[in-house]
């Protein structure tokens, strides 16, 4: 199955296409309004929210400050619990490692719970190329997979589709589907189709929301029950997660869990919170016989190395920043061309894919600050964006190591324009001459001025420069 391909490097084109798609914009507007309201209602007490955010930020920073030790501890405790731990530096290693685990067990059919990390490593695609069937079991992911698309939101993958579009898709792909626009019936249709898949599956692959070092426990947050199915029914369970997801103590979990679900969907708790600390233990009668944990770096250690950019790794993937982003709301998730769209996508993707691919993304922000205002772990997204904009254009400052794709967006003409400007500003006589010239010639500046006037009117220049005005005032003052 080939998935429709969007690319980060094509952001500008993809964004204009999305902006022209009225249906898409309507779907996103509706969804974002809904999610914003839900979040607001879940945090009725502002003081409580402020305290909880500080607390959550503090927990994440503490855990990151001990990351290497916590990863060692997690590995030890998981292994003591019977969970086998594996490491992968990049996409290719992770794909291969997971494929090997499946093939060693003779697996042919995989069901997946919702997991953004496996999207990041394009796992489905890889497994299919090896003849292994890989079915998404989260309702939204299932819909997106039928449509041969990728998720457009990290919490609600099919948020770009309305029910008609889903019904049309089911009609095309599901045998004996009685066309209906009833959401209940659509979900029941999906449930039945996927139950068969769960029954036949020999491998379940899931993500992880929190990996607890203290007890070697993997926590999964969900409403549907597909995550529990994935980690209960097939004999082999493989959990895949980024190295930053580890928390130190079990007691770190309740506050993070509470602020995660409230920020994401406005729920005080999700239907299921699934804590896995090992495979089936004798004499237990169910649960997978093997549990594996795959820890993936894929650029995260680059963010980790920098005192400022490290904050990116505090993220608990709630999606609130995208729900409140004026850019995301208008262009939707696909336009970004990255696994993680929206504000979090703009700050994490440069580490995953390099700045060369993603330099347009870091500029796609008005820096309005809505993302930072709602982020449950206080990630200063706008200032991280400014930093990444700088890194995309300029070489690293001394003492700071270069990012992947550092300065790849540097432009010779832009660089020279700034140098000229700097020179001009430090030579007052020439500067004044130049401004006078600009003012006289202003009326000859042609319309349209390219991209600037496409949606703005041409700026009107004052008839006199600021310096001229001040000079005149001073003269007047003197003559009085």
């Amino acid at each position, binding site marked *: 199955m080939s998935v429709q391909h969007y690319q980060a490097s094509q952001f500008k084109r993809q964004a204009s296409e999305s902006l022209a798609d009225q249906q898409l914009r309507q779907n996103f507007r509706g969804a974002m309004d809904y999610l914003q309201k839900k979040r607001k209602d879940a945090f009725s007490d502002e003081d409580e929210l402020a305290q909880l955010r500080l607390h959550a930020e503090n927990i994440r920073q503490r855990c990151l400050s001990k990351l290497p030790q916590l990863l060692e501890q997690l590995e030890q405790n998981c292994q003591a619990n019977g969970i086998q731990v594996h490491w992968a530096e990049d996409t290719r290693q992770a794909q291969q490692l997971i494929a090997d685990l499946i093939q060693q067990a003779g697996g042919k059919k995989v069901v997946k719970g919702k997991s953004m990390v496996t999207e990041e490593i394009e796992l489905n695609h890889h497994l299919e190329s090896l003849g292994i069937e890989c079915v998404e079991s989260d*309702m939204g992911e299932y819909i997106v997979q039928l449509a041969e698309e990728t998720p457009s939101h990290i919490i609600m993958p099919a948020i770009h589709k309305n029910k008609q579009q889903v019904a049309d898709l089911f009609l095309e792909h599901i045998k004996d589907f009685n066309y209906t626009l009833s959401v209940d019936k659509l979900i029941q249709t999906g449930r039945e189709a996927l139950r068969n898949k769960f029954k036949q599956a020999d491998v379940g692959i899931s993500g992880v929301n929190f990996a607890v070092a203290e007890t070697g426990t993997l926590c999964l947050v969900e409403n549907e029950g597909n995550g529990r199915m994935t980690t209960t029914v097939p004999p082999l369970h493989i959990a895949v997660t980024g190295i930053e997801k580890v928390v130190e103590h079990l007691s770190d979990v309740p506050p993070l869990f509470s602020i995660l679900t409230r920020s994401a969907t406005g729920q005080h708790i999700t239907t299921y919170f699934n804590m896995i600390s090992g495979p089936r233990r004798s004499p237990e009668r*169910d649960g997978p016989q093997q549990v594996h944990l795959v820890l993936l770096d894929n650029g995260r250690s680059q963010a*980790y190395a920098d005192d400022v950019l490290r904050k990116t790794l505090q993220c608990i993937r709630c999606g609130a920043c995208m729900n409140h982003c004026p850019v995301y709301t208008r262009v939707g998730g696909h336009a970004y061309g990255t696994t993680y769209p929206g504000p979090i996508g703009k700050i994490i993707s440069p580490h995953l894919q390099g700045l060369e691919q993603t330099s347009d993304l870091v500029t796609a922000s008005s820096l309005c600050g809505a993302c930072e205002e709602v982020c449950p772990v206080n990630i200063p997204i706008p200032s991280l964006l400014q930093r990444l904009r700088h890194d995309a254009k300029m070489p690293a400052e001394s003492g700071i190591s270069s990012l992947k794709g550092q300065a790849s967006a540097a432009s010779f003409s832009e660089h020279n324009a700034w140098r000229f400007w700097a020179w001009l500003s430090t030579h007052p006589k020439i500067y004044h001459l130049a401004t006078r010239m600009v003012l006289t010639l202003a009326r000859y500046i042609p319309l349209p001025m390219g991209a600037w006037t496409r949606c703005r009117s041409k700026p009107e220049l004052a008839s006199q420069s600021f310096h001229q005005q001040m000079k005149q005032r001073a003269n007047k003052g003197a003559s009085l």
Partner: protein
Amino acid sequence: MSNASALAKANIMQRLSAVSALSPKPSAGSHQAWQSPSHEVCLTRFKQQLTNAHAEVISIPNVEQLTGSLIELAELHQWQSAMLGTGGDWHQLFTQALTSRLKLSVFEQNFEQYKSDLFNNTSVSLTGCDAGIADTGTLVLKPSAEEPRSLSLLAPCHVAVINASQIVDNFALLMAQQQWHQGLPSNVVLISGPSKTADIQQTLAYGAHGPSELIVIVIEGE
């Protein structure tokens, strides 16, 4: 661990350990989850939150009423078949109430034996609970050989029985009281309502993959 994985670990660890990440100020922020002034308030909140989440909550004054209310439920819901564990606090009463009314199976072999039945031919499964959390209206299950994981997952209806005395104020308190950091069973699951999804046009639908009905019987007196 394979060689490739060991090498990957060494490389990742080397990159991470080269960094001296400062730890944050120790005392920023706080989180006090909901606390109840009395057990009555706690119980009320527990039931209210579960009801809000679309679970059916039935309160009975004492354990003697349990079989009676199960019989009523069985008739009302027209259950054809039920699955039980081999033990747990209420096992005998479950059996007593249902045995002559419907096809009753007991989970006494490995999952593989019951897979097909659990997927297709079980109307209801019944379990006890390890604890309850009032703050969020949550059942805490610690599945075991006596009450396996799939009992709360595969049938379209899950009935869970809990003593009011098992209900605590919040999640953090429960973890602390039960010393979870000392070690956990292979699976602990928090359940706060029937399975649901809003993945199609933000419209809430129940019974996505897990049970579409969750019935909680609360035994209020001992």
